[in-house]
């Protein structure tokens, strides 16, 4: 297709988060099972299960990643973070057995992103998690790449359905490459087209009128 002039801030790579990336902000909103290791005075209203004024020590809560990262300290235990199910031993063996059959969108949708972020929390399992993430990605990448390079002018929703966010981006890039190559082969590379942005605006205006 044509070059887009709107390029969103790309998400960070690996363990880094990109401060302004919308994807990373949504990723860091994923909730993690955690347990408080000390008393949080005057914040009892955040925890619906008790009427007490404070959050008691030892309360189990689901904290968003950003908060868990902010509160977590190695020296002073304020909260302890549990691994989400999909990164635990049991699931890791499933991923090892055959990474291509798993529906990562349902598990994630930020399976790789959240997994890399989990490495911030000191856990003895960290090396295995990192290894599992890498192997899963390697195991699935070939298929993602293959399908993105070979499906032309077809409905891709069934292929994209089970992909993680990262893989979706890769798939889209592959498709864009394929489309522009096909356009070039047909001699349509110099064809001037209307901006997709403009076209989408018009579509929306139509639906606005109908509503």
């Amino acid at each position, binding site marked *: 297709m*044509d070059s*887009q002039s709107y390029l969103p801030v790309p998400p960070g790579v690996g363990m880094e988060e990109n401060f302004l990336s919308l994807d990373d902000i949504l990723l860091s909103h994923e909730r993690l099972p955690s347990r408080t290791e000390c008393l949080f*005075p005057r*914040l009892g209203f955040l925890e619906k299960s008790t009427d007490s004024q404070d959050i008691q020590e030892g309360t189990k809560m689901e904290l968003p990643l950003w908060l868990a990262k*902010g509160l977590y300290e190695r020296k002073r235990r304020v909260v302890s973070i549990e691994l989400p199910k999909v990164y635990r031993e049991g699931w890791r063996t499933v991923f090892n057995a055959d990474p291509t059959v798993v529906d990562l969108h349902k598990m994630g949708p930020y399976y790789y992103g959240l997994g890399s972020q989990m490495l911030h929390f000191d856990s003895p399992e960290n090396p295995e998690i990192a290894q599992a993430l890498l192997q899963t990605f390697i195991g699935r990448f070939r298929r993602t790449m293959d399908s993105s390079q070979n499906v032309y002018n077809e409905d891709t929703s069934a292929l994209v359905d089970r992909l993680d966010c990262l893989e979706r981006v890769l798939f889209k890039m592959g498709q864009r490459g394929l489309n522009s190559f096909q356009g070039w082969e047909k001699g349509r590379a110099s064809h*001037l087209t209307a*901006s997709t942005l403009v076209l989408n605006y018009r579509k929306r205006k139509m639906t606005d009128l109908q509503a």
Partner: protein
Amino acid sequence: MFCEKSIELIRELQRISDGQLPAFNEDGIRQVLEEMKALYEQNQSDVNEAKGEGRSDLIPSIKLRHCCLLRNQRCVTAYLYDRLLRIRALRWEYGSVLPPNIRFHMCSEELQWFNQYKKSLANFMRSVGGEEGLDITQDMKPPKSLYIEVRCLKDHGEFEIDDGTIILLKKNSQHFLPRWKCEQLIRQGVLEHVMS
């Protein structure tokens, strides 16, 4: 939980990820700022208490609120910044005059920013390419011929070309025009490039 309002702002942009500009959510921003103000005041009083009365048990709560403040700040900054990226893209897709329904979605500071951007871009284009300057928004794809065949997709009124001739762009009429004159109209969806 705190910061639910600010993540809503981000989701709003993420839902329309192709670069369209949703209406500026003034109300959402206001609510986030109010939450931040409340968090800050609560923290301030707790800090004073912790210092004055030596209540170090308050520190975890202070830290939690502080994290929320930083989080809200990040979300609002990212919201505004992503909108600016979209607005900048509009200059390249639509040209310097935006349709009113898009201008309507911008807040006054954003309109001001757009005008500044337009000015900077124009200044730059005037400064390169010798006397007349260079329109860098032209020829996004390398041109193969000076003239191209175009068909009108809607009534656009009269249109003057280089040699002073005035042609009427009427729906479904076909013309042979200088490429640089119609590139922008094609991008805006008024004309369609016809290839034989």
